[in-house]
């Protein structure tokens, strides 16, 4: 049965520690300047909580992947579980996908003159394991969900600073943070 796998990012639990990012880098021993997953600080004025809200992002394995649509050599494929793969053997490094992806996900590797990106640890998932970022996050803020069966109650498709989901229909979902009481002396 076809799936629509996506990441669920729990912003309530995430504390912006960047562990997921380095768990990914460690798993694939990525080059220093390549970031398949990246933790972004959400702009300070977006929530009533200065500086401390983050979103951990990687490829959104979109329902309508722009990367796939624009690639002239068909380096991208979408598996029937929804994972969007990039085949470096086919890639000619033209950078079309980099320009097309609203989330700046495909990364250009200067040394190889080709693109690379997150494949949701497809080989691990096929073995019944979880992606490296998911197993690495000390807050358990990341998980893989199947949007075909997952109840979206209480989750959102959009966060401040996250590009408009209409363009590529990303499968990433978020849980919003709850903001506690702050007794501050600057107020």
């Amino acid at each position, binding site marked *: 049965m076809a799936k629509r796998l996506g990441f669920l990012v729990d912003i309530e639990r995430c*504390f912006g*520690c960047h562990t997921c990012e*380095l768990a990914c880098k460690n798993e694939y021993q990525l080059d220093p300047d390549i970031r398949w997953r990246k933790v972004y600080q959400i702009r300070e004025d977006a929530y009533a909580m200065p500086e401390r809200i983050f979103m951990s992002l990687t490829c959104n394995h979109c329902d309508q992947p722009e990367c796939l649509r624009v690639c002239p050599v068909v380096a991208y494929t979408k598996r029937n579980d929804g994972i969007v793969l990039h085949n470096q053997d086919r890639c000619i490094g033209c950078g079309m996908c980099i320009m097309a992806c609203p989330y700046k996900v495909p990364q250009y590797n200067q040394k*190889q003159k080709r693109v690379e990106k997150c*494949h949701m640890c497809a080989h691990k998932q096929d073995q019944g394991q979880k992606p490296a970022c998911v197993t690495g996050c000390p807050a358990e803020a990341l998980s893989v969900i199947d949007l075909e069966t997952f109840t979206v109650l209480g989750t959102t498709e959009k966060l401040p600073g996250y590009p408009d989901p209409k363009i590529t229909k990303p499968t990433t979902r978020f849980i919003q943070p709850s903001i506690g009481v702050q*007794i501050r002396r600057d107020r």
Partner: protein
Amino acid sequence: MDKKLTCSRRSFIKGTAATTIALGTAGSLFSINQSSFKTALAQEIQENKIFQNACPRNCYDTCSILSTVKDGILTKVDGNPDNTYTRGRLCVKGYSYTRSVYSPDRIKYPMKQKGRGSGNWERISWDEAYSEIAETILRIKKEYGSTLPICLNKYSGNFSIMQYGIEGMLASIGDHSIATGTPCWPAGIDAQTFDFGTIYNNDPEDIVNSKYLILWGVNPAWCAVHSMYFIQEAKRRGCKVVAIDPILTQTASKADVFLQIKPSTDGALALGMAKYIFDNQLYDAQWLARNARGYEEFFGYIKNNITLEWAADKTGLPKETIETLAREYATTKPANIWIGYGMQRHTNGGQNVRAIDALAAITGNIGKSGGGAQYAHLETWGFNYHAMVQEKPQDNRAHGNRAINMNNFGAEVLAADNPPIKMLWIACRNPVSQDPETSVIKKAFAAMDLVVTAELFMNPTVEMSDIVLPVTTTFENPGVNVSYWHYWMTLNQQAVKPLYEAKNDITIAMELSKKLNEMQPGSCTFPTAGDLYEWAGKEFNANIYSQFGINDWKELEKGPVKAKRGLIAWQDGRFRTPSGKYELWSEEAQKFGHHPLPVYVEEVKPSGKYPIRCLTPHWKLNIHSQFQNLDWMDNIDNTPRLEIHPKLAAQYGIAHNDNVKVYNEIGYFILPARITETVPVETVAAYTAWYKNRNYNVNYTVKAIPADMGKKATGMPGIAFHDNFVNIEKI
């Protein structure tokens, strides 16, 4: 995909180009090509060897690691799921380990510098290094009649029990000078020693049982990430979480309530709460009668001296807030307090910790699951430390080691007389970057005949040394690690061969001993040969075995083990104070010059010329001067910043990213501004760290002001790092 992973693997190994490691066949092993991945993965698993390792840093979490090694190369690290505290996860620093092992920046062979700080390094052989060091040791000994002019400065860069070989080596040449004390946490240790008899915290996994949790000046979201899971789990089970801190920390952002207290006034808040608890009879009279000493005197003190108005004024928190906090804390059971190390880095830090401990005592929260006043523990550290205990050589003429205050190291090295200090041996430390008063430290280095530093990287301390000895990473030698927070013990296996010419400290000690004995038989009693695993074995004793429920340390090869008993601190009610009770009134404290009660000691306030407090806490991508120098960290963030509140910035005409000079009477540093409401208005924050390519060091402005406590338990008072006052200026 094949190519990418293959290439990445190749470039990864290229970092080690100076060695002759066989690359093996870099096939398409990581292939996720649909048709072949299953066989590829199976093949990968077959060819990989998995080793047990432990993260040995000065970190609460002391993670259990599983290392993957292929063809003799460490290809990745994972958390070991057997450890129920770290739960199969590392942190941002832990996952970077391949980058330190294979960093092109590693010191690869012994080197000698012509002119300290000149960068004029020349490769020498180990034999040349040993010869020069041994000659200097023997010359100094002859000239001054003892080895007292030789000073060891070693501390927390690696907490494996195998690292104590270096103390042993120095002990084996005779009585010497030794940096004594600890910069991090001594005031709090003494405070808890006066109150309880020692430091001793509940198993942090027990946090889930708390119904009320105060995170008091502690930032686990950056400094003990694995504890955040237990905090969030407690919250899910209905625990209310309150964070008290001058800074709106990452941890505070996850709390139900954040209270922004004025720095260094934590004792006033605790005493204000105690006053409310007393007035409203919310204390646990039964617990106190059975377990405590001096509670009448304590209640007398708060009755006569403390008001809630005073506490509100001191702390900057509304009176009603203090009342609510006190009521909730005293009436929700069990209630837990986690006291951080930052809040005791003040001239009244120890007293403030005592006042917080008192809250746990008067509410009867001590000795209970879900309760307690957590600070740290050393309960699982009962090793033999046999490496340290060496006989003195027969011609040893001094009468014991000379203690040099680690927390005022530069000045005390310079002041040492009769005999003066002439040689430094530095291991597991980076004083030039991490100690207060950097300029004085540099002066002390300049006054030496010889400075030897054993290190991994070319850090500022190595830059000021004469000889640098390349040391192994934790993956290149065996060890055993325990934590000062959780209750696990992890064996650290040698996963890969030492890279380049790196050696571990015990091997260095043995080989230097050999050289010394060649030059002057009997001059060093340290063994000249030995098997490192046997050394590890000698650290164990019957007590540790029974505490961890093992019969032999080799059982650790199967995985980490957790202590079987003592997981709830003080459950037996047998305190280790002179009276055997919890001592609100402590004569021990009096002996060390403090008031016997946890009274309020005035906090230091800024003076006219330097009106801004500069806090220098820890940053999330480093521990002291470790990790931030690695390329993966640099890629996440390579710009240290001065955090400054928008109101203060406006007052000084500072905009985001403007360069700001932070200065006081002893020095300055310059940083771009990050304007943020996370810091209090009258306080700036800059993180203590060593960045590889930046001339940045907060300690140029930090004075070696002693904290109030630390002398009893650690030999020297701590450092009031956070009583650092500066002025700022846009440049």
